[in-house]
């Protein structure tokens, strides 16, 4: 019988434009990789605060965008606002995964942490403040189907957040690899 499981891998990014190569070890009885999803967490705010302070002195530099503009608790402000109503989502990085058995990446994605235009989905204007944690969609993994007999996944991650803001931001990207295991 097949059973589902998930393998969690964390990547810690500290420097702007940092590129990380990593491996994800799967259990020996893994048959297939069936899905991939990701999450993220800001570890150090100090850099962000420092940068926000630096922005006052030097206005042309954009401040890092980590969440949507409507999150009151964020000390981070949206830097790059378009002139129109809608705002561009902040790209955090690029993530690619490769199976050891087949050539080419089997998974490649741009990593975003939040939908900057989430509030435009609510036309009720009821005064219920729109946040990711109140109005967010249910998250599900992206489905893939890859043989996993060699039990090693090669991974590659490239920071875009720090690079675009020209500041070192310490954050963590968590990668969830869903697998099918033979019982």
């Amino acid at each position: 019988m097949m059973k589902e499981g998930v393998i969690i891998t964390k990547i810690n990014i500290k420097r702007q434009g940092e590129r990380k190569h990593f491996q994800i070890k799967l259990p020996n009885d893994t048959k297939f990789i069936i899905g991939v999803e990701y999450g993220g967490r800001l570890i150090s705010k100090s850099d962000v605060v420092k940068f926000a302070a630096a922005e006052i002195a030097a206005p042309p530099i954009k401040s890092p965008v980590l969440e949507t503009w409507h999150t009151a608790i964020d000390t981070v402000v949206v830097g790059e606002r378009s002139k129109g109503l809608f705002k561009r989502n902040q790209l955090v990085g690029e993530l690619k995964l490769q199976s050891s058995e087949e050539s080419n990446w089997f998974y490649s994605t741009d990593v975003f942490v939040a939908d900057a235009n989430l509030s435009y989905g609510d036309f009720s204007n009821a005064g219920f403040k729109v946040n990711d944690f109140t109005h967010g969609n249910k998250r599900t993994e992206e489905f893939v189907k890859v043989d996993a007999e060699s039990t090693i996944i090669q991974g590659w991650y490239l920071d875009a957040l720090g690079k675009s803001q020209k500041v070192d931001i310490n954050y963590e990207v968590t990668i969830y690899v869903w697998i099918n295991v033979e019982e």
Partner: protein
Amino acid sequence: MLKATKKRFDIKITQANSTVSDTFELDKNIVKVHGVLVTSDKDDLLYYRGTQKIEINKEEFFPDNYESKLLMSGINVAPKQRYYDLGGVSPGNGRVQIVYKDLDDGRTVFTAYRVSLYLDCEMEDEL
């Protein structure tokens, strides 16, 4: 006859960067667990800071460090679709364990909060 029922279990997080573990017992007449959902009275803290492990009948369904935000559903999700689908798990001994870990995140300030674990279950009407 089988009927659907929802169960809620709460844990309190009173210290930043702490791990809280608790085990709950399901009713004996529950025959299947269909879905799981986590919420909180301060959902921003749960969303940004929370990770958890969930076991049912000593079987691990979500491992350590599985982010809570992946098991949350906002009000934009239809009520009938809010639970994470487990596909009808047998509850076995009926013990549900949650090991919740709170971790500092640059965007939040800690204050004590509650984490609620909801289970979408199917139970026998009469034993």
